[in-house]
């Protein structure tokens, strides 16, 4: 009941989806269209809400236990509830949806857009102090990288030479390397999926 049935469900759903791929007939499309593709997003609404619930729970625990930086958890909670209120109530009471859009455009966009721009600085610093041609392999990598980085530089007569070399790098050795990696990744995904469907891999079910 606790383990066997879920494994049976996974196996039968998985097997159906594999077989359906090879069977174009209309009759095979009923389950595919009306259940397999239609229901999971609905389940997803509830499943994804779990993330929000767990965020709330963690924040409240932090505040209650007054752990380090607990005050910031209050900020998270306020952000969460004010934003959801704007959105959910705003749907039924349009004036609030302006506040929702405002918060999205002026709080969420600038912060998310800036967060990863910090990496530009980290790359510059690492370029100076850590990216070393410490072996033949690292040297090949760095030379290829520098050529690719210079591909759009206005270098006068050299522009087309650098451009062509970097095109060659992208379309020949890069293609070969990435295709070899891709084949490995593909086999990896297929084997993981097979293990799940066949019930060899069960860690996602958790412990009893």
């Amino acid at each position, binding site marked *: 009941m606790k383990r066997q049935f879920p494994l049976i469900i996974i196996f039968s759903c998985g097997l159906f989806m594999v077989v359906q791929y090879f069977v174009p007939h*209309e009759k095979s499309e009923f389950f595919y269209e009306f259940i397999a593709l239609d229901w999971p997003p609905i389940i997803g609404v509830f499943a994804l809400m779990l993330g929000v619930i767990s965020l709330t729970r963690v924040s409240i625990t932090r505040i209650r236990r007054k752990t380090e930086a607990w005050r910031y958890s209050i900020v998270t909670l306020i952000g969460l509830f004010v934003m959801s209120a704007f959105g959910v109530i705003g749907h039924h009471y349009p004036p609030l949806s302006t506040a929702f859009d405002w918060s999205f455009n002026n709080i969420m966009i600038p912060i998310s857009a800036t967060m990863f721009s910090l990496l530009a600085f980290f790359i510059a610093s690492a370029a100076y102090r850590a990216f070393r041609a*410490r072996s033949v392999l*690292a040297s090949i990598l760095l030379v290829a990288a520098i050529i690719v980085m210079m591909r759009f530089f206005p270098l006068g007569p050299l522009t087309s030479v650098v451009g062509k070399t970097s095109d060659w790098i992208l379309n020949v050795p890069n293609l070969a390397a990435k295709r070899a990696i891709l084949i*490995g990744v593909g*086999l990896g995904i297929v*084997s993981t999926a097979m293990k799940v469907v066949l019930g060899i891999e069960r860690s996602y079910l958790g412990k009893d």
Partner: protein
Amino acid sequence: MRTTHCWICIAATVFICCVLSLSAAAQVDEPHSDTLIVDSTTIIVEPPPAPISNLQVVDLPNDHGHAFHLTWNISADDLGGRNNVLQYRILRTPGWAGPLTEPQGDGPQWRNEQGTWWHLVEGVWDTIASIPAGTAEYFNRGGKAREGNDYSPDDVGFSFKILSVGTGGAVSESAIFGPVESSGQWYHTGKTWVVLAVLIFGGLMLTMVRLARGGRELYIRPLAGINAVDEAIGRATEMGRPILYVLGLGAPDEIATIASFTILSRVAKKVAEYQTELIVPCYDSIVMTIAQETVKQAYIDAGRVDDYNEDMVYFVTQNQFAYVAAVNGVMLRRQTATNFYLGVFYAESLILAETGSLAGSIQISGTDRVTQLPFFVVACDYTLIGEELYAASAYLGREPILLGTLKAQDYAKALLLVAMVIGVIAGILNLGWLTDYFALNI
């Protein structure tokens, strides 16, 4: 008096009938009105283009039905001759006629969601498409839902003809082709390679996992990185400085994280033997719990359970940059001799590697995130690239599922390699009959 009534009634009936039939024509037979206009405007300004020839219609193969594939040779006056073809109009019969207010006749008919009736009529030509000149192929794909206005039933004989519409409006008709029936297929013949590949690979995997579980010795080549691990621990002992092990930002069920646990167990065992200090800061609390178990077990195996200290493995924070800042602090403060970064890494990879290289630590890294590998390669002393991480873990841990999967993938790669070499040789020699097999026709 009575006669007047009679006349009024007749006039009203005629009027209503006219309105109804006109509105019906306007609603449904829009395409037909096109053909009608064409017929009525055959005031010859210029002669019509030559008709198309060799119209062929087949049921579209490998589909769910409701579709036909049309091919033909374009008109002699298209892209040549008088060059006066404007478009091709594709006509089909029988058509579904309607909407009607009530069922009519004995033929097949149904009622749609709006409550109107449709029925099948022989001899009514429906214009199903108008396509630009120069085209020699058309897919007539109908809907499968009976309620839809584009419904095209299976197992009903349809005939087709194509009108070549000239620039002056004159048309010429092709010969009629048909009838043909559409139907769905139970097996997609273009996907046979995929069936074979899935079956072969699945079989390989089941066999290998079973063999590994049965304790069969499966060979995996030693990886240079594993020797580097031992050397690095030795060096840390000589210098009397601690070892840092970072498990990455991955969830506990990701393969890279699982692989990292196996390597951690090996490192912890060596560390216990050499009596060096180990620091494992964690990003995820569940990862931390598993890591604690792993390290403790390693100390027990090494017979040094007394040296084990819970604080070696600790949770930092689940926040990318804050986590990195904390780990950087540890590296600089404790002057770690060796840093291991094995698992799932994102943008933080280069920040970690930079700080470690500044602190003068030996760094061994490994991840399956391809985008982070370049940074590890240029900033670390040894890097396990992608699958090498899994291989290292399978080599050290001999965990049957991991080992069996790795072996199965290896054999699959070997098969693919052989197939590719055969295909390439056939390609170089231009052996069409052989290279034709190296394609999916989906």
